[in-house]
C-alpha cells in the first residue's frame, strides 16, 4: 500500500512540477503592498494568460483527484450512480449560462464575475474537504497534497481575477469572501459511506466548476484578442 502511495505521489509530483514552476510567480503584486517581494509589472494580457493557466491546472488536478478518490473510496456499484446525483451540485442563485450560445452572449464583465463567484464559492469547500479527508483510512498523501494545492491555487486564482476585474472593468475593490459559508451545509456525517459519497460528489462538482472557470476565461481571452469567431 505504501509503495502504491509512494508511486502515486511520485507520479503526481512528476506530473505537476512543471506547472508548479510556472505558477509559482504571484499573479499580482499590487495587493502585496509593503512587502519586500519583488513583483515585476505584468501586463493585462499576461495576467489573463496566467489566470487561464491557473484555471487549466486546477481543472486538471481536480480531475485527477476525483478519479483517485473514486478509485479508492467509492464502491463500484455507486460509481455508476454518480451521474444520477446531478442535483447535488447546487449552484448559486446567480445562474451561469451553460450553452455556448448563451455564454457567448455574456459580456466580459459577467464572464469575469461568474468566474469570480465560482472561485470564491469553492475555496471554503476545498478547505473543508481537506479536513474531512484526513479522517479516511489509508488516504494517499498524493490526494491530500492535491487538494491542498488546489486550495492554494484557488486563492491565487481569485486574486488574479479580482485584479483583472479591476483592470479591465475599472471596478472597485471587491472583497474576497473567504468566510462565506458556501453552498453546502456540512455536518459531520457519522456514516462513512455517506461521508464518502458526499466528498465524492463534492469533488465531481468541483471538477465541473473548474471546467467552467476554464471555459469562461478562455472565452474572455478570445474576446480580448479580437480573434473570436
Amino acid at each position, binding site marked *: 500500500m505504501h509503495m502504491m502511495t509512494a508511486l502515486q505521489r511520485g507520479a503526481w509530483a512528476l506530473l505537476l512540477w512543471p506547472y508548479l514552476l510556472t505558477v509559482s510567480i504571484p499573479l499580482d503584486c499590487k495587493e502585496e503592498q509593503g512587502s519586500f517581494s519583488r513583483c515585476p509589472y505584468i501586463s493585462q494580457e499576461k495576467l489573463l494568460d496566467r489566470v487561464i493557466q491557473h484555471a487549466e491546472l486546477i481543472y486538471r488536478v481536480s*480531475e485527477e483527484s476525483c478519479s483517485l478518490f473514486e478509485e479508492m473510496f467509492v464502491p463500484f456499484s455507486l460509481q455508476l450512480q454518480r*451521474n444520477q446525483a446531478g442535483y447535488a451540485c447546487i449552484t448559486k442563485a446567480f445562474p451561469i449560462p451553460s450553452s455556448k450560445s448563451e455564454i457567448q452572449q455574456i459580456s466580459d464583465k459577467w464572464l469575469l464575475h461568474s468566474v469570480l463567484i465560482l472561485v470564491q464559492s469553492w475555496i471554503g469547500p476545498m478547505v473543508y474537504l481537506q479536513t474531512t479527508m484526513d479522517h479516511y483510512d489509508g488516504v494517499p498523501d498524493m490526494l491530500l497534497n492535491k487538494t491542498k494545492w488546489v486550495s492554494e491555487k484557488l486563492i491565487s486564482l481569485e486574486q488574479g481575477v479580482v485584479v483583472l476585474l479591476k483592470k479591465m472593468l475599472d471596478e472597485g475593490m471587491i472583497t474576497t469572501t473567504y468566510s462565506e459559508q458556501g453552498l453546502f451545509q456540512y455536518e459531520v456525517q457519522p456514516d462513512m459511506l455517506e461521508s464518502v459519497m458526499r466528498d465524492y460528489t463534492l469533488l465531481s462538482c468541483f471538477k465541473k466548476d473548474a471546467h467552467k472557470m476554464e471555459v469562461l476565461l*478562455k472565452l474572455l481571452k478570445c474576446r480580448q484578442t479580437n480573434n473570436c469567431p
Partner: protein
Amino acid sequence: MAVSSSSSSLLLLLLISSLDWLSTPGSASLIDRDQMTSPAPLGPHFTDCISRDQVTFQCWWNPGDFHNLSAPGAVRVFYLKKDSPTSDWKECPEYIHSNRECYFDANHTSIWITYCMQLRSQNNVTYPNDKCFTVENIVRPDPPVSLNWTLLNISPSGLSYDVMVNWESPPSADVRGGWMRLEYQIQYRERNATNWEALEMQQQTQQTIYGLHTGKEYEVHIHCRMPAFKDFGDFSESIFIQVTKVPNKESALTLMLVLVFGVVGFLIVIMLVVISQQHRLMMILFPPVPAPKIKGIDPELLKKGKLDELNFILSGGGMGGLPTYAPDFYQDEPWVEFIEVDADADAGEKEDNQSSDTQRLLALPQPVSHHMNKGCSNAISFPDDDSGRASCYDPDLPDQDTLMLMGTLLPGQPEDEEASFDVAERAPALERSERLLIQTQTGGPQTWVNTDFYAQVSNVMPSGGVVLSPGQQLRIQENTSATEVETQKKGKEPEGSKDTEEKKQKELQFQLLVVDPERSGYTTESNAQQISTPPSSPIPGEGYQSILPQPVEAKPAATAEENQSPYILPDSPQSQFFAPVADYTVVQEVDSQHSLLLNPPPRQSPPPCLPQHPLKALPAMPIGYITPDMLGNLSP
C-alpha cells in the same frame, strides 16, 4: 447428477466472469455498458452518445432482440435535463430514424448539466437502464485535418532521419475561440507492423518524429481529445512516410579524397626513404638485385678495364684476405667456366692474328676457333655468381683448341694485343691441352700461339695427388714463358719431345704450377720467365696460389732456383697420346722422390685410384681430373 452439478457450476462461473467483466472500472458516464449480460432477452438500449464539438450531441439506440421494436417510432427517446429541480422529461428534439439516432442541436445542448436519456415504448413503458451524462464528458473530437510531414534531417550515415509532422485542429472544434481545448496524440508504425507507437500528447499542432529508418515505409495517424477528459476522437486518415537512401555523393567524394591522400602520402614516404638512403629501409623496400660480385673484391673492379687491380687483389696483394677465399669458393662451384677475355676492339685482330693459339700451335683451321672465340668473348664467368652465362663449351666442336686451358677468373683486357685469354670448358680444354701436347710432341703446329696455358694446383689430395684448378688470369707475354716452362720440364720420356715442344711453344706461355714439396716453393711465371728468359719482365704479385704440403713461400723470387723442380707432365702420355692432350694434368701421386706423377686425363679409361663419382656425373668431364669442389667428396 454430476453432470447437472457441473453444468450449474459452469453457469455460475459464467455469471461470475460476466460480472467481472462488468466490474472493470471506467468512466461511468460515457461508456454504455450493457448490463444485461444474463441470458435474458436484450431490450432496447442506448448504444452510444457522443458530442463532437461540445455544442451538439447525438445518441443512438438499439432495439435489441425485440424485432417488433425496430420499426421507426416504436421506441421513443426521452431526456431529462437536470438544470433545475423542477425539470421534467422531454422527448427527443430531433429524430433520425434511419440511424436510430436522436440529435440534440445547439439550442438543446448545455454543458455542465446532467442529461439523462430514456427509451420508452409507444405506450410509455419505460425500458430500464437510463443513460446519464454531462455533455463535456462525452465529447469526442473529430480527427485533426491536413496531416502532412516534412523531412527535418538525415543522419550522416544515411540510415535514419527525423520528420516533422504538422496538422490542423478539426474544424468542428472551436479551439480558437477557447470553447474547447484539445490535445493531440500521434501514432506511427512501420508499414506491415501490428503495433502502433504512440508519441507524447501535446497541445501544439506539430510534432517531430525522431529516428525513422531510411528505406522503410511508415504509417502515421493522429487523434485528439479534450485534456483531462477520457475519450479520444476517431483517428485521422493515415499518411505514409518514406525516405529512400540517396547515394551520398559527399561520402563518395570524401572516400576519393581519402584514397588520393593515402596514395600521395605513401608515395611521399617512399620518396623520403629513397632519398634518405636509409640502408635498412632501402633493403626492406628495394631488395638489392644481385650483381656480379666477388667476395672481397669491390664490384667496381669487375667492370671492364680493371683487370690489373683485380689481378693484384686476387694474387693476394690487396686486402690480403683473398688468398684464403679462393679455394673455398672454388670448392663451392661445380663448374668453373673459363672466360675468354677479348677486348672488343681487338677481338677482330686477335682472331685474325691469333685466332687460336692452339690452332696456331697445332696448325688447325681457324674459323672454328674464331667462331668460338667470338662466341666466348664476352662471357664473364666467375664461380661465385655466374651460373648461366654463356659458356663456350661446345663438345661437338673438335677444334676447340683455341679455347684453351687458362682458367681465368676475371675478364680483363688482354695485356697485350697479342695475347688473349681464351676461355674454354675444362673438359674440352683438357682434351685440347692433351691434344696440344700430343700434337706438339708429335711435332705439331709451327705457329706459336699466344695463349696462356697454365694450371694451378689448388690442392693436394691426401693420397698425394695434386688437384689442378684454373688459376688466376695471367698476363700473357709474347715471349717464351711457355718455352721456359717447357725447358724446365724434367719429365720423363717425353722430355725430348717436350723440348721441341718448348721451342715451338716459345710464345706459348704455358704455365704450370710446379710443386716442389722439398723446396717448399713454387714457380711462377715470372720465375719461369726469369729462368728462361731474363729479359722477360717478372710480374710481381701474380703468384699462383698453390697448396703445398709444406709451407709456401710467398715470394716468387726466392724460388728462382727452382729450375729443377719437377715438372708436371702427363704421366705416360705417350701411351695415351692417341687421345687429345689435355691442357691440365693431374698429379696422380707423389713418388718416393717427391716427384709428382702426372696422369693424362684420358677420356676412355679413368686412371686408377681416382674416385669417379663426381666426374661421371658431369658429361664430358675429363675423367680423373679433380676439381677442388670434388675434394670434399673424396675420401682417402
